[in-house]
């Protein structure tokens, strides 16, 4: 894998940053945001973290951590389909890693557009899975809304993750 060449100049703590932020972002999406007109649907923060690290440092975000973050999210949000988020996040990571050359050294707008694509895929998959399991096509509105709000909040998430990313060399000193 081409990205594994430059992997060893970070210390232990710095190498934990991608995994830790991914799990923290998963927890973040569970917090009750009571912001007016925000609605009951929270942005998929875990998706942002998985996307970000899959583009920039996939070597530091092992599949097991992605799986664990998805599982944690499912166990805490009370879904009957424990494992669905894990599945979606694993597929997003796989898809993004194969396309990461498209995003590296490009303007943020390209990254944002790529994230929109990933979000559409992720939430469409969730919609299809839940509809299949309920044997009834789910109302698509909440899924569309979640795709849009997650994409709209991506710059905030991306900014926070970039801060963590920049702090990594300092953490390994």
């Amino acid at each position, binding site marked *: 894998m081409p990205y594994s060449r430059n992997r060893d100049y970070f210390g232990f703590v710095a190498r934990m940053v991608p995994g830790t932020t991914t799990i923290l972002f998963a927890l973040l999406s569970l917090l009750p945001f009571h912001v007016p007109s925000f609605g009951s649907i929270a942005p998929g923060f875990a998706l942002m973290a998985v996307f970000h690290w899959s583009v920039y440092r996939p070597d530091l975000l092992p599949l097991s951590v992605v799986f664990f973050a998805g599982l944690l999210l499912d166990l*805490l949000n009370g879904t009957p389909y424990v494992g669905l988020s894990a599945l979606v996040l694993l597929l997003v990571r796989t898809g993004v890693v194969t396309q990461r050359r498209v995003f590296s050294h490009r303007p943020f707008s390209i990254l944002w557009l790529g994230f929109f694509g990933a979000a559409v895929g992720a939430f469409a998959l969730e919609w299809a899975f839940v509809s299949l399991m309920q044997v009834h096509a789910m109302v698509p509105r909440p899924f569309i809304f979640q795709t849009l709000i997650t994409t709209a909040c991506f710059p905030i998430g991306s900014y926070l993750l970039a801060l963590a990313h920049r702090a990594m060399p300092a953490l390994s000193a």
Partner: protein
Amino acid sequence: MRVSAPVRATVQRLTLPFLIFISALLAVLGKADVLLFDRVRVVLADTLAPVLQVAGEPIVTASKAIGTVKDIASVYRQNEELKLENQRLLQWQEVARRLESENEELRNLVKFAPQGAMSSVAAQVIADSGGAFLRNVLVNVGRDEGVTRGQPALTGDGLVGRVIELGDRTARILLLTDINSHIPVVVEGTHERAMLNGDNSDQPQLVYFQPKTPVKPGDRIVTSGSGGVFPPDLPIGVVVSANGMIRVEPYADLARLEMVRIVNYGLDGVLPDSAIPEPLSIGRSRSRATSAR
């Protein structure tokens, strides 16, 4: 442990298909065997409750600040509205007092035995499912505070949902908008029975047993009490018509729940915890833990 390069390469190549297979399997099987996950979930929620509560503080503070700014902007209009409402409520108070004394006289007359006392506990929402296909919240009270499964959760405005999952310090409340929520209701005034079924939208659907019953927008919907989970006459919402379906706008603001009241009406319409068999593996490890202590 040292592993030879080809073995390592094989393991690495197989990790992704393996994890994808496991998560898909869990997601499909989970629906069939929810029990195992329920135990894990409850323990996890209990453990992480303090973390979620602390992490949620700044968000609560921020949203309160935004709320304050909004309130200041509308303070004059609100004051006018409140004055009017106060006038109306004072009249109602008069009526209520009269009814209360009349009620008491009548009760004395027929030697009426009052129903079991109800008690309630206030609960703070510490996590919100936030998903597109889930409508539930996690609150910071549980078995320790005397909450049991099936108890209704209310705000000052009306019914919110019921307790479906219970830990020692946390409880999960299924909101009445969730696709798995089905509540027996009556239309106030006509006493027509119906079911209120959630479909993950903001306004649950009203489904009638007799489809020709006239119902019009503005009708109040309250719990019927059949099934024994909810007591009768808890306010739920008003009928609004949307897309040809009869839908109900809940009185409680379900999108922005901060505090709810979990009320014990002394009903036992849902299966008690003891009626649910514990999965063997976890039951065993737990009893071992107790004996070690």
